[in-house]
């Protein structure tokens, strides 16, 4: 027995699984913990008998991912007994897929247009002709015929691609909050709370990004981009209800994101230096 509330034998479970179940349980309302730990224990024991350890880890990851939703419905049940099955505004898989796709897509596309493209096709010709090859003078970042917001978005996306991680995190925050605010059926108080949390986190990250951008002190080589790529890979390979076309698109974006990180940190380092300088 892990706890008195486990309501059954848990001898098939490993120590780490018991610890994780106990930890997950602490996130739930007290009256609900024993019931849910029993559910998890029974499921993990079933999976243990099938003898596939990776399935148990997937199960635990999935349980952790849905813990906020579970906490919300369990808490609502305790407080006022909801009569509706509409979801509270919590991240869904589809929402996560959108956030990852937008963040990765923006970063990779910006990197291609602002860095890889000009550096490969334009810089050699300019150097041969003795013309200034400053990225600020090249298309698209230096093309005044393009709208300024678009140019700024592309240049910042390229910075996010080379390791300005707070910027990528800020964009993830902003996009996530945007999707959360779009969810219908929420109270205004909940919307304001979501907005306040997102604004706080997003502004913190933007401030960090601004410091990084000018001080060039905290470029990580693409940790945030790698993590986003890992999340995209997880979504592409999982059974979270995403249709095939979505999983394929996320898989391609993940590969592109990893490729950007690898190129930036290997043979593309000269390009990164050119862009940063």
């Amino acid at each position: 027995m892990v706890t008195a509330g486990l309501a059954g034998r848990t001898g098939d479970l490993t120590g780490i699984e018991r610890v994780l179940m106990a930890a997950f349980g602490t996130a739930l309302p007290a009256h609900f913990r024993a019931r849910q730990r029993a559910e998890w224990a029974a499921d993990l024991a079933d999976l243990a008998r099938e003898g596939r350890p990776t399935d148990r880890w997937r199960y635990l990851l999935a349980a952790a991912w849905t813990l906020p939703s579970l906490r919300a419905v369990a808490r609502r049940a305790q407080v006022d007994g909801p009569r509706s099955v509409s979801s509270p505004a919590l991240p869904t898989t589809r929402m996560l897929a959108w956030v990852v796709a937008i963040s990765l897509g923006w970063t990779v596309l910006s990197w291609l247009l602002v860095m890889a493209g000009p550096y490969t096709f334009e810089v050699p010709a300019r150097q041969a002709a003795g013309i200034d090859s400053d990225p600020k003078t090249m298309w698209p970042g230096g093309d005044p015929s393009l709208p300024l917001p678009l140019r700024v978005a592309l240049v910042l996306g390229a910075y996010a691609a080379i390791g300005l991680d707070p910027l990528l995190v800020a964009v993830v925050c902003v996009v996530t909050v945007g999707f959360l605010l779009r969810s219908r059926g929420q109270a205004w108080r909940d919307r304001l709370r979501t907005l306040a949390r997102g604004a706080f986190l997003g502004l913190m990250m933007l401030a960090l990004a601004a410091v990084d951008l000018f001080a060039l002190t905290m470029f990580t080589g693409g940790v945030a981009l790698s993590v986003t790529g890992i999340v995209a890979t997880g979504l592409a390979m999982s059974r979270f209800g995403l249709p095939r076309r979505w999983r394929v698109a996320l898989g391609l974006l993940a590969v592109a994101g990893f490729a950007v990180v690898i190129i930036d940190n290997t043979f593309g380092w000269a390009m990164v230096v050119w862009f940063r300088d």
Partner: protein
Amino acid sequence: MTTPRLLVLRAFLDDPTRERYGLDLANAAGLEPGTIYPILVAFENAGWLRSWQEQVDPHLEGRPRRRYYALTAEGASAAHDALADNARRRGRRANPTGTLAW
């Protein structure tokens, strides 16, 4: 209503008399095991499901007790309505096979 919720309702309606437990239901619905409990609790809160813990001796059975779920009459009706509504909105457009469109 989200697609996972519709998939769970469909799994229940595929065999309305069958009592199911969480992992079994997640597999039947095609969901990632471990993600189904928020859905089940929300449905139960709404009165669409009832649940109970099986009365077995875990030591004799060699496994923990399971919690089983079944549709209530209200839940069955609501599930039919939700799936029909979804089919009306999406089915013909993208899914001639009758399975859920995402």
